[in-house]
């Protein structure tokens, strides 16, 4: 472990002499710096989007996952008996986690938008509602309906599927979209940084040639370039991540609408994710420059 640390430190500190052989400025610097910065910036956004839509999807599915409702209509005198039968049926149905009678107050709250809060619920032939939550596997709605039809004819099962499924699916699609975009931007970043490293190396062909001619070993030359470009990519990416985080923090300040979209931004340990971007892009630059340097060198005698 210590050896690895020493190696990484040695790499970062570098050989001051070897460093000078790589031109310090010019368009290749700007290219590498800006490419890493811009792609890191976009990746922060894509990450924020993915995480936000992930949270959105989670909220939707949990809020809508209330399961199903059983509506029981029966003459007032049979109500209690039928309710007991229905509960028994539900409790023996595989896939039903809990079944709960809604209290009169709860029913009144649900109906309030239609009749106002002063509804005389007792005087109305209001059906009894039973709230069902499913287990992860869910229950067989068609089977349950058959059993209920046989034992509790006045019961109607409303499994909310019509309302819930599309929403959950939509949230899932949004989350998938977020991850697809992060994958795409990540792939584009890697490709772009690879290309920038290649461009920078091609632009420095004369430097490599001169070094080779005066007796520098391949390792020395590759190391000088790899170090320089990795550090540049790291610096650019770090700047991009910082800019991205600032932008993400500034963006949704517009609103309290966070309630629904749960806001663009990072929560809890998610803050650690954008911090991975710079090291990852740095690693890509490290690898790409190494490969490009070795390829360029092999073209030289």
């Amino acid at each position, binding site marked *: 472990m210590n050896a690895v640390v020493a190696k990484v430190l040695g790499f970062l500190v570098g050989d001051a*002499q070897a460093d*000078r052989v790589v031109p310090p400025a010019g368009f290749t610097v700007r290219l590498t710096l800006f490419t890493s910065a811009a792609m890191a910036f976009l990746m922060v956004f894509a990450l924020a989007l993915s995480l936000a839509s992930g949270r959105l999807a989670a909220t939707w599915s949990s809020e809508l996952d209330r399961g199903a409702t059983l509506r029981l209509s029966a003459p007032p005198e049979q109500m209690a008996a039928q309710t007991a039968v229905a509960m028994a049926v539900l409790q023996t149905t595989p896939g039903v986690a809990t079944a709960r009678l809604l209290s009169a107050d709860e029913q009144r709250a649900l109906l309030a938008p239609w009749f106002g809060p002063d509804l005389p619920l007792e005087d109305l032939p209001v059906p009894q509602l039973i709230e069902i939550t499913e287990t992860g596997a869910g229950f067989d709605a068609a089977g349950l309906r058959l059993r209920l039809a046989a034992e509790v004819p006045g019961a109607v099962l409303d499994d909310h599927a019509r309302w819930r499924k599309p929403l959950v699916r939509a949230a899932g699609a949004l989350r998938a979209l977020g991850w697809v975009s992060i994958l795409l931007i990540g792939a584009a970043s890697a490709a772009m940084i690879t290309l920038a490293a290649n461009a920078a190396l091609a632009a420095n062909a*004369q430097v490599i040639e*001169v*070094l080779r*001619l*005066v*007796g520098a070993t*391949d390792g020395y030359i590759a190391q000088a370039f790899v170090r320089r470009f990795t550090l540049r990519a790291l610096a650019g990416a770090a700047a991009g991540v910082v800019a991205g985080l600032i932008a993400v923090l500034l963006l949704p300040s517009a609103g309290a609408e966070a309630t629904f979209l749960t806001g663009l931004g990072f929560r809890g340990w998610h803050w650690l994710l954008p911090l991975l971007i710079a090291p990852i892009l740095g690693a890509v630059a490290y690898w790409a420059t190494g490969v490009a340097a070795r390829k360029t060198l092999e073209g030289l*005698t």
Partner: protein
Amino acid sequence: MIELENVAYSYGGGELLSEISLKLAPGSFHFLTGPSGAGKTTFLKLCYGALIPTAGDVHLFGQDVRAMTRDDIALSRRRIGVVHQDCRFLDHLPVAENVALPLTVAGADRLEDVANMKELLSWVGLSRRADALPPELSGGERQRAALARAVIQSPDVILADEPTGNIDWEMSQRLLTLLIELNRMGKTVMIATHDLSLIRAAKSHVQARVLRIANRRLQLAGADL
């Protein structure tokens, strides 16, 4: 030091050089002449391992070039100082650092070299331009810087390709004197040139053999020079 045995080379068309055999002994002094395009530069490239012969064998310091790894070649270049015909530099480093580059990449630049370097630069007339960047040099100054770079490491062999093409007669004499002094210290020297008066001038100071590339062969030029 450098041995060529029955070497031939072709860039893809017909053979440019054929049946070339030569042994560069330590302390020898050679001139290489031949018309433009005859293959002088190609021959020198064979001698420092930049080209692999298409036939025959080249040995550098006893090793077969075909069997040498890339790092072996790099290391052998620290023992062979080369003045290239198209001298190239690191354009972002001043002349002094460019001249010291072979020491830098060998990890061997020490304090005592600074004095050496100063003396060398003043000998080739570049003291005043030591801090200039290579693109700011005149043609002749570039060639002199290239020669300084080739000898700074005090290599065993010095191969110079037209080192005086852009340099006036007096400065050429100074450079020649430098090479002759190095040769006296036991270094092997080979100079490709088309300047016959340079060869004549050298002959009065040192026992030089003159090689000539003609008809794809390497010939020993007669005493007519």
